[in-house]
């Protein structure tokens, strides 16, 4: 009798444990935890886990709790596709969040199609990314809006420049950003007097700086997200070149500001800013900083919103069947007012954002103009 009781108890324990496992939604995470985009990848990982901890602490969604397995894609499309395939072949993974670069996300698009699994990128902004597959989504906004905004409002209106020199990373994202920037700049009567490219991870810009300086532009624009942004501007400063610095890509990165020899001379576009008057946003900012040791940009904030978007999608499914396809379909129709603003996907799977102008100071980033300079006027 005692043996029977123990067996029943064990069986109950096994069944209850099995049931608990079945109620965990497993997500994959792709982030460049090492390499030139480390700041952003680390931010992704921390933000994903912050959101998941909050959701789980609040009891989960529809009886489900969440977990995420964040892997280091190194910002490399080849590594990213290997990891994406691993997630795709693991039936317990319902979707993955990431990757950081548009190039890596685009490389994964075919895997999403093949396995019918959603890739929700917090930051991919190449205009042709989300339309590559019905399973591809992004919430950063698109370069065919941000880059023209930079041309018209920062270079043209705010700085009043007639000529510009562009140095950009030679990648999918860099090309998309530049072609959209160039189109608008030409329309606005801004002449691009120099255009130089470099490979990801480049460190020596002395030759490029000397070269573009010879064209005597009114401002120097860098299109990239990683360490190279600071490297270009610092080497221009070291060259004794007194010119206004403009960047598209890094957002309001605290690490970028810390790396610059002249932080007060940079202007960037950003669709989002940690407004000191917004208590909710600043509470998140402080919580993130306490965990990471550095101030967040829009990139981890988008990563945080991505987890909540998945949670909203799960919530909208209700008692219905939850699988990769139903999650994707629910995500397409989600409307969510997140940390970075209101999010509703277009049929292609991306969103439209408005942008503002942020400038560096020795103390940190400040908004130079408000949302009235938004993309609506483009």
């Amino acid at each position, binding site marked *: 009798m005692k043996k029977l009781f123990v067996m029943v108890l064990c069986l109950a324990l096994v069944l209850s444990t099995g049931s608990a496992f079945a109620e965990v939604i497993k997500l994959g995470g792709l982030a460049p*935890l*090492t*390499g*030139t985009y*480390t*700041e952003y990848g*680390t931010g992704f990982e921390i933000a994903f886990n912050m959101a998941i901890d909050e959701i789980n602490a609040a009891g989960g969604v529809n009886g489900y709790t969440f977990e995420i397995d964040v892997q280091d894609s190194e910002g490399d499309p080849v590594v990213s596709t290997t990891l994406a395939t691993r997630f795709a072949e693991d039936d317990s993974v319902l979707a993955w969040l990431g990757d950081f670069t548009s190039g890596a996300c685009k490389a994964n698009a075919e895997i999403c199609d093949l396995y019918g699994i959603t890739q929700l990128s917090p930051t991919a902004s190449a205009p042709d990314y989300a339309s590559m597959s019905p399973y591809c989504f992004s919430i950063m906004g698109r370069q065919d809006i941000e880059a023209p905004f930079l041309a018209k409002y920062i270079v043209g209106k705010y700085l009043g420049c007639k000529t510009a020199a562009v140095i950009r990373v*030679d990648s999918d994202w860099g090309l998309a950003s530049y072609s959209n920037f160039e189109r608008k700049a030409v329309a606005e009567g801004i002449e691009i007097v120099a255009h*130089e*490219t*470099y*490979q990801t*991870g*480049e*460190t*020596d*810009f*002395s*030759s*490029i700086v*000397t*070269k573009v300086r*010879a064209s005597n532009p009114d401002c120097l624009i860098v299109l990239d997200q990683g*360490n190279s942004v*600071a*490297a270009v501007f*610092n*080497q221009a*400063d*070291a*060259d*004794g070149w007194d010119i206004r610095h403009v960047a598209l890509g890094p957002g309001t990165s605290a*690490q970028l500001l*810390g*790396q610059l*020899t002249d932080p007060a001379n940079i202007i960037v576009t950003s669709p989002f800013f940690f407004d000191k008057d917004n208590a909710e946003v600043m509470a998140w900012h402080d919580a993130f900083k306490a965990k990471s040791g*550095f101030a967040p940009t829009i990139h981890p904030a988008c990563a945080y919103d991505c987890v909540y978007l998945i949670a909203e999608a799960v919530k909208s499914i209700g008692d219905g069947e939850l699988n990769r396809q139903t999650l994707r379909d629910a995500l397409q129709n989600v409307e969510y007012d997140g940390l970075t603003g209101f999010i509703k996907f277009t049929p292609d799977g991306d969103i439209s954002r408005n942008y503002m102008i942020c400038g560096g100071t020795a103390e940190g980033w400040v908004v130079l103009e408000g949302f009235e300079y938004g993309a609506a006027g483009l």
Partner: protein
Amino acid sequence: MEYILSQLMNGLCQGAIYALMAIGYSVIVGVVGMVTFTYGEIMMIGAFGAYYTFLLVGNNLLVMILAAFAASFLIGIVVYKVCYERFFNAPRHISLLCTIGFSILAKNLAQIVFGPDTKPLQGIIDNRIFPINLFGLTLQIKLLQIIIIVLVVVLALALTLFFNRTKWGVMLRAVSQNREASYLVGINVKRVTMMGSCIGCAFGGVAGILLAINYFVVYPTMGAAYSIKAFSSSVLGGLVDLRFSALGGLTIGVIENMGISFSSASFRDIFAFGFLILVLVLRPQGFATKRGSRV
């Protein structure tokens, strides 16, 4: 023309750092007798050694260089013990694979220990520019470039003196030329070989801090791109000849920068390695001559 001179100066500055890397690399290959693929990480460790010294004692370039030298010198012992000591009589690819493994391990450990983020290293050298008149043309030379080039020349001369005027230098050259004969005349070959590894690594460490000062940052993956440049420069100079290895590094630096000035920085490596291949096709021994001397 002034533009060309400026680009030439950029190339000479970068080439000087490549030259220092190549000299250290050639010392390792010459004395140890095996190539290494952990050199980029040695440079990174040297740069971090200098960075933390900077945080500790403030801005003192000489102390920072000494710290980089010491940190990489000590790592040279570890590299020798792990990658070379047990494999002198084994097939060459064993130690080669060990250096590749050590490189990956060092890079990943550095990311854990130092953190994966990029650390700024600014204001080490004043941002001063000197206009120099050359036959009616004004060449703008940065103080940073002058210091880097002078430092590399001084270190190269010091190493040459060390090899030619000291007992240790003579022993290192002897081991480089013939290990068995060195053993027979009473030289402690193992200890001397380890010293060669350490000196080569130490020069890599100094090259690392010069890179960090030149680009204002230190980060764990900073050496990855430079390991292959050190190897290429050394190969261009005949692998074990210090003078020609230095010339190889200088040439690659100038070729890269002059190439970029007439095309795109995306083609940097095409110029460097295209030139390397061209030279090796025409002269498989690189710049080295028969009269050239080993380490």
